[in-house]
Each structure stands twice: as structure tokens, then as C-alpha cells.
């Protein structure tokens, strides 16, 4: 009898962790991991931080070729899966090759959303998701003077920091009343916006791009309010959409993502989804959602590997996230979206900002800037299911680090 095969589609943070954890858990069957990219799996976060610069930093591989060989993980690059045939438990590649599986893990991630703005196909208009995108962007930045970034989310702002750091004239255009509207509290967004402005970045909010102008190359973007921003490089960074079409074809996915339960299983037996593509019930948010973060991708990889090797299979890990912009390191523990009370405080001589976010009286998330101690303490506290009061959060003498150490000692 042939050994069981686990097939993983997508070889990035979620897919690679799934494969690694399967072997860590003693899984002895075949592991085949398919990627439509040409490179060894790599860290995506540096793309918008250090890679998308002229002569950018080195690629950071997630794991080496040797790691995959040693663990008998069959990594297949440059191959796109075109169809799923769940009744036969097989998939078909774009070239028509057939691969059979016993368990299938969809780790297909997400891709940049591109709104139908006229001019979006002009030269010099880009998106950022892959290593190839980052290299192209870095090259384009070299010859650019004016950079317009459509969308004031994390990726747009990180690239704004890179471009401003390279001395470019940068404008960020955000349709919402403030930047990072979906991602962080107003207090945190304000501090980041202030830093961007201090570095010479123009931030336009409450205005949207009507058209991108140019002959063959972009020359400007024009907004609804009538602004005309000169641009020889435009980054469209208005969010991402799940790569859920394969799943959609068999009725388990749509524009929102691939629907899974708390064990990350889809409604089709033997098929799971992890990472950016997985619309999952999140115990910390109390809602079903997609989360785009390294933490979510790797912890879901661990969970699905546990499910496939008969262990604990509920996804309950605490969300956490980071973003680096200039010398600011933003860290988020928990889920701050949907909070109804934000208590902010500034600690230390340099007044480092922390925002404690509460929902219905419970601490749900903590945003901190250049305060790793508070961040790690909040992760420990929230991960243990503990809360603090708003009064404690506001009290300058309350030390969340010490509180978290007490939990650790009690464990």
C-alpha cells in the first residue's frame, strides 16, 4: 500500500509551517508542497520593509532546501494547481498533471486587491505581494522622484517609510477619514501619521483616487476632491483578497475566503485551509474572519498539522502582529478591531505609546510602539485568558510586565 499523502497548495508561511509541524509530530507519509512561485519559500514581511529598496536587502528564506530534503518534504516550485477533484481526492496542475492526495491543505494566501481605477495598467503602477513584486518596486523606486501610494494600510505605510527614507517625495492617499482605519485605534494611527508627516510624507485622507494619468507611463494621480498628485511610481495597496477560487469551484469558498471550522477543516472531507485564505471562527474576536498575519499563518499551520496527526485541533492561538516604519516598531497583541473603549498611556522618559483596547469591559488587545516588554506581557496575559481593568490600564504605576510574570510563575 502506498503511504498516505498530504498535499499542500501554497508554500509560504502557512504551508511551510504545516509541512514542518507534520514532521515534528511524527507524520510519516508523503508531504508534497506545491508553489506557483519560482523561489524557495521566503519571509513576506521584509518585502515592504527592507527588500523594496534600490539594491534591497537579502531574501530571507523561511527554510533551506536542505531542511525540506532532510524532512522528506517534496517542494515543487513553479507549479500552479488549476482544479480540485475532491471525489477522486486529486488535484490537477495548470499543465494537466494529476496529483493524488489523502489530505489536502489549502494554503493559497491572498493577493492585492486592485480597484478598477482608470490608468491602473500604466507602466509604473504596481502592487506588492511577492518577492518579484518587491524587486520590481525597488528597481522602479531607484528612478522615481514622486511616489504616490493608494491606500493608507500597513503595507502602503511601510513602503512610504522606505521611499521617504530614500529621499523621495511621497504622498499617501487614503479614502477613509484616517489611515489604518481597519487595523488600529485612532491614537496609534495618529502617532504613526505624525511620524510620516515629520519625515516629509504627505498624507491625504477622506479622498479617493479617480484616475491614474499618463501616456504609457504614469505621470500623476487625480483625486475626487480635485487634487493632482505628480507621480512616476504608484503603489496600489488598498488591501488583499483571498485566493479562494479553487475552493470556490467546489463550493467551499467565496470572496470572503475559504470557510473552515475551528479545526480548520472545510465542509469537504479531507480538505483544510490555513493562513491568509482561511475564513475561520476566531475565538479571540468572537467572529468568523480572515486574518492576514504571520502569526495566524504559522499557528494555523501548527493546528492543522495537529489535526492531521490526531492531536489537539482547535485553533485558539492569540493573534499578534508587528509593523516596522522608520524607527517605530508597532506591535499588536490580541484583536483590537471592534473595541468600544481605548485607554492610552505614555511610559518612560520618551513617552512610548500604549493603547489598551477593551470590548464590553474586557481587554481584547494592546497596541504598543517601541515597547516590546508591554507587547510580550500583553500576549502572555491575553493568551492566558486574563483581563485587566480600564483603571489599571490608565494607572501609571500599574506594570503589565510584572502582572504577566505573575501568571508565568503561577503556571
Amino acid at each position, binding site marked *: 500500500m502506498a503511504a498516505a499523502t498530504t498535499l499542500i497548495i501554497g508554500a509560504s508561511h502557512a504551508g511551510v509551517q504545516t509541512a514542518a509541524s507534520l514532521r515534528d509530530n511524527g507524520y510519516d507519509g508523503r508531504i508534497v508542497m506545491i508553489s506557483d512561485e519560482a*523561489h*524557495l519559500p521566503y*519571509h513576506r*514581511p*521584509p518585502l515592504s*520593509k527592507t527588500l523594496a529598496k534600490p*539594491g*534591497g*536587502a*537579502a*531574501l*530571507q*528564506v*523561511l*527554510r*533551506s*532546501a*536542505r*531542511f525540506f*530534503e*532532510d524532512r522528506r518534504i517534496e517542494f515543487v516550485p513553479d507549479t500552479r494547481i488549476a482544479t480540485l477533484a475532491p471525489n477522486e481526492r486529486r488535484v490537477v496542475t495548470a499543465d494537466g498533471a494529476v496529483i493524488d492526495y489523502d489530505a489536502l491543505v489549502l494554503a493559497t494566501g491572498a493577493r492585492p486587491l486592485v480597484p478598477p481605477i482608470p490608468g491602473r495598467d500604466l507602466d509604473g503602477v504596481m502592487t506588492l505581494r511577492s518577492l518579484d513584486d518587491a524587486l520590481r518596486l525597488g528597481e522602479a523606486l531607484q528612478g522615481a522622484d514622486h511616489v504616490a501610494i493608494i491606500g493608507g494600510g500597513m503595507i502602503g505605510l511601510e513602503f512610504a517609510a522606505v521611499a521617504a527614507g530614500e529621499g523621495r517625495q511621497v504622498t499617501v492617499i487614503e479614502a477613509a477619514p484616517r489611515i489604518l482605519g481597519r487595523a488600529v485605534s485612532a491614537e496609534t494611527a495618529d502617532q504613526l501619521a505624525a511620524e510620516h508627516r515629520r519625515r516629509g510624507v504627505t498624507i491625504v485622507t477622506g479622498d479617493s483616487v479617480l484616475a491614474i494619468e499618463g501616456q504609457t507611463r504614469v505621470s500623476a494621480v487625480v483625486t475626487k476632491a480635485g487634487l493632482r498628485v505628480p507621480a512616476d511610481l504608484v503603489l496600489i495597496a488598498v488591501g488583499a483578497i483571498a485566493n479562494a477560487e479553487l475552493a470556490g469551484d467546489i463550493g467551499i469558498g467565496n470572496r470572503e475566503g475559504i470557510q473552515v471550522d475551528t479545526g480548520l477543516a472545510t465542509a469537504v472531507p479531507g480538505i483544510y485551509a490555513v493562513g491568509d485564505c482561511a475564513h475561520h471562527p476566531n475565538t479571540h474576536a468572537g467572529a468568523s474572519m480572515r486574518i492576514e498575519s*504571520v*502569526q495566524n499563518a*504559522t499557528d494555523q499551520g501548527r493546528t492543522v498539522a495537529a489535526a492531521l496527526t490526531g492531536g489537539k485541533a482547535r485553533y485558539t492561538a492569540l493573534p499578534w502582529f*508587528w509593523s*516596522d516604519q522608520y524607527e517605530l*516598531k508597532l*506591535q499588536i497583541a490580541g484583536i483590537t478591531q471592534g473595541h468600544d473603549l481605548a485607554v492610552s498611556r505614555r511610559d518612560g522618559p520618551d513617552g512610548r505609546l500604549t493603547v489598551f483596547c477593551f470590548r464590553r469591559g474586557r481587554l481584547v488587545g494592546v497596541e504598543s510602539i*517601541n*515597547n*516590546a*516588554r508591554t507587547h*510580550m*506581557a500583553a*500576549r*502572555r496575559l491575553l493568551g492566558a485568558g486574563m483581563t485587566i481593568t480600564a483603571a489599571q490600564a490608565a494607572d501609571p504605576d500599574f506594570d503589565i*510586565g510584572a502582572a*504577566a510574570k505573575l501568571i508565568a510563575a503561577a503556571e
Partner: protein
Amino acid sequence: MANCLRDVPSRSPAATGVDGMPRVTYLSPSGVAHSVDVRAGDSVMQGAIANGIDGIVAECGGSASCATCHVYVDEAFLPLVGEVSPVEDEMLDFAASERQPNSRLGCQIAVTAGLDGLVVTLPERQV
């Protein structure tokens, strides 16, 4: 830096100092040694990843945001591995395995020629 866009080919442990590459020894928690050549300028974390060494997770890819690249630096090399930055210091306080006086984040130590022969011990847990 086009040559950085490829994975580092793994080298045999016997080939000390190939191309003058500094050699680093990673000791597993149970004391098993893996000696590998690390490209000068790479971090202790990257050296482990490039050589497929178990026990370094490196979830954040080297931005001092995850503390899953925790190592204990051999005392003899402590004076040579540079200063602990404030962020690293705070992250180490909450690493999954207990912080020791010789604890460092592997991603924050650049392996230079001067660190040839470096020995680090990996902790029991990174997550």
C-alpha cells in the same frame, strides 16, 4: 546583492572555513553539536536556517519581533557578540525558554570573521 537571492548551499561540516566563512557551532538542548559555515554578515539565526538546523523557529524573519530565535551564547564569545538593543532586551524577558545572562536573539547577532568558532546552545523551546 544578486547573490543574496539564492539559498546558501549547505556545506559539509568537515570543510572548516570554506571561502573564509566563519564557522558556528549550534548545540542542541541535549548537547548534539552541528558545526556549519555561515556567510559573513548573516545572523546566527540565518546561519541556522540556511543549514537546516532544528530549534530556531524565526517566525518574524529577523525583525526582533518574535523571540523564537533565542540562543545561549558560549561565555567565551559574550564580549564579542555586541550589545543587546533595548528591543531585544525586552523581547528576551518573555522568551519561551528562560532567559539567562548569556541569552540573545540569534537574529540580532551578525556573524563576522571575528566570531569564527562561535558556539551557541539552543533552548528547550522557542514557542
